[in-house]
């Protein structure tokens, strides 16, 4: 009875610990993490598996999988090793996935934050621009950009980033609109904090969880977009990419289905890993949504 309100509760476990505990609860998310780890592992060890150029002729063209142990997953019509193509393709997919996502989230956060925080005419102008982008189908815009910029892998990544920023921008705007009215924002303004600092240091960290979750979706989408480009023969021919492999395997689909199927499975599993990862992040970062 002598305790005063000023006494503290026992300290809580640190944030990463809490985060991991919540994440662990979702089994599918653990599978996603596992698949993601495999993709990262493949990208890292591609040079060890095949120190040479993955695009060189490695064996007899159209060898079936598990026939020749020099090329365990077989070869395509030009005699290229499918296994090393898969490993090197993981690099391209991750590169495109991560960099394009960073580009799109960066653009989306800046535009969405400005629109949501300031409102008024700033919001009107930025949202009309966003809508202009949204009216053009993603893939058509991507084709146009690649046609203009050329099909080097850097340009392709940039182009994918540019076509996918609209959805995060809208989401960030909505988050900012609800957060800017909260009292802690007034409190920061009252301390004399500048608008820039309020946007990026006060509001953005609070708006981050849904953005992080959505980033995993964009990552999956960018990998699909890159593959689709490569499938149409617009990918960078200098790199082994899963999309390229499917695109070329398409020609021999009836006689050597594995040329297209194996990279196809790789894409499916990678994209799946990102969406499971996203779901797990959602559970871990927004715990309240799921408790009911």
């Amino acid at each position: 009875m002598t305790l005063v309100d000023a006494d503290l509760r026992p300290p809580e476990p640190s944030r990463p610990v809490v985060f991991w505990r919540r994440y662990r609860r979702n089994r599918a998310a653990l599978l996603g993490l596992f698949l993601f780890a495999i993709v990262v592992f493949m990208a890292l060890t591609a040079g060890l598996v095949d120190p040479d150029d993955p695009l060189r002729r490695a064996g007899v063209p159209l060898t079936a999988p598990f026939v020749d142990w020099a090329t365990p997953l077989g070869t395509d019509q030009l005699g290229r090793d499918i296994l090393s193509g898969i490993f090197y393709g993981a690099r391209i997919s991750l590169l495109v996935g991560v960099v394009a996502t960073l580009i799109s989230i960066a653009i989306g956060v800046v535009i969405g934050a400005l629109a949501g925080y300031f409102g008024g005419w700033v919001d009107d102008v930025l949202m009309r621009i966003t809508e202009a982008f949204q009216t053009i189908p993603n893939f058509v815009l991507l084709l146009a950009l690649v046609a203009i910029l050329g099909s080097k892998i850097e340009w392709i990544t940039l182009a994918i980033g540019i076509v996918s920023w609209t959805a995060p921008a809208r989401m960030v705007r909505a988050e900012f609109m609800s957060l800017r009215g909260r009292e802690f924002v007034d409190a920061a303004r009252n301390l004399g904090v500048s608008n820039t600092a309020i946007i990026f240091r006060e509001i953005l960290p609070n708006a981050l969880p849904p953005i992080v979750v959505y980033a995993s979706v964009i990552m999956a989408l960018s990998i699909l977009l890159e593959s689709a480009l490569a499938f149409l023969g617009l990918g960078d021919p200098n790199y082994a990419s899963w999309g390229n492999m499917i695109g070329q395997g398409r020609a021999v689909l009836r006689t050597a289905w594995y040329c297209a199927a194996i990279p196809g499975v790789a894409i499916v599993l990678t994209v799946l890993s990102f969406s499971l990862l996203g779901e797990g992040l959602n559970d871990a970062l927004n715990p309240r949504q799921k408790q009911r």
Partner: protein
Amino acid sequence: MSSGPVLDIRDLRIALPEGSDRPFALEGLNLTVNPGEIVCLVGESGSGKSLTAGAVMRLLPEPHVQVAGGAIAFENQNLLDKTEAEMRKIRGNRISMIFQEPMTALNPQKTVGWQIDEVLGLHMNAPRSERRAHAIEMLDRVHIPDPASAYNAYPHQISGGQRQRVMIAMALSLSPRLIIADEPTTALDVTTQLQILKLIRELQEEDGAGVLFITHDFGVVAEIADHVVVLRNGVMVETGPASQVLNDPKHPYTQALISSVPALTPPPAKAVTQAPVVLKGTGLKKTFAASGGFLSGKREAVVAVRDLTFQLHKGETLGVVGESGSGKTTVSRIVTRLLEADSGAVELNDTDLLACSPRELRAMRKHIQMVFQDPMASLNPRKRVVDLIAQGPIVHGENRETARARARDLLELVELSPAAADRFPHEFSGGQRQRIGIARALALEPKVIVADEPVSALDVSVQAQVLTLLADLRERMQLSLLFVTHDLRVAAQLCDRIIVMQKGEIVESGLTAEVFADPQHPYTRNLLSSIPGRHWTPPTFKTAPVTEGAA
């Protein structure tokens, strides 16, 4: 009408999920509500009083929290045996509930009229026009100005007090046998509160309904209760007729709670009017533009503040009191320029704050700081306490390390342990968070602190502690406070002078002691005569007031 008690709770136990701070939210509660009787269930937050209401309505968040034993008899039928379909017929019709938080209890998507009509449509067999007339009559009965306009309004378009009136109109519209009121007047101003309390009394006398009234406020208890049950951490510590519990409490916890109630006697007048003026507001005006749906009814533009002029002297506490909608919160926002006034001037250090450019304003802000009402919402949940407090000085060019070190000193000043510095806001109780808010405001060593209802979200015992802290800091640091509150008891404790606002205008101002002793304006008289429990003087006890914090 059955002759027995309306509600009879026997040995009720409610289990909490595993891993909670205690196994039972409620242990062995016995409670009887007779027709025409008002039973007050009193306790601080976390005492299990709201869960009692949930158990009677069978609205507990099962299966996490569930009734583990006991019986709840409503008109001699055990509610715990009822099926969900039977409960639906009882809820809203025979037992109705008035919720704590009128904003969340109302659906923000639907108009007030639609929501009342929904209840009436479920239980009343009448054509639409008749239901509408009944709804408007109910809105009129709970004293909502212009009921026809309010019928078309959305919840966000009416004030907090009016929202609660709508909730009460909804609950009373079907003349229930039992009314469960969960802190129904906590969000209301005194005059409204008194009207609502009278209204609940009135209804009882008409219909003989029983009321289970949940509250933390002993003033309200003194005003309305026939019988009192005091809860502490789920255990009933004291029960008895109202007069006995209020004037001669036996249990030390009840004594501690009662001695935390601020007395209505203002402090002796200080000679501060000779001190220099630090903050001066002249001719302040603010109007909120008209809004109205395209298809729904229109609402008119609201004048929040009209022609307000005031002066705050150094070392003085100026109270701004008034009902909701009187513009007192708008005043606090205009003065700190979180809201742009339409016209007028706020002079601080001979500089007009309202005429400052954004850059000048940011520099000026260190002279005028604010303590916010909601200690949860006003602290950025992603920042550590030390960073929250040090933020202001750092923004104004203080060295990071010095600012952090000073933040730790400030924690001590507001009586928090230095270990608090590295925690996040959600790890603190409401009172502790408000202390952090005060430390943040003090960090810049401002000339003026504007406090917007700083204690209204806190439990009485915590409220008493925070008020003591504020009063103490004010003496030690020669603070000038602009203290916005709806609670006249709090104002009486802390303010040297008060200004009373009504509908955006000052109706009376003067020394607190003088205004309380001899109010001139009829509105002030009305306010003062509405203070709950004004006829009751809390008894004093020999033991020092002790209170329970988070363990």
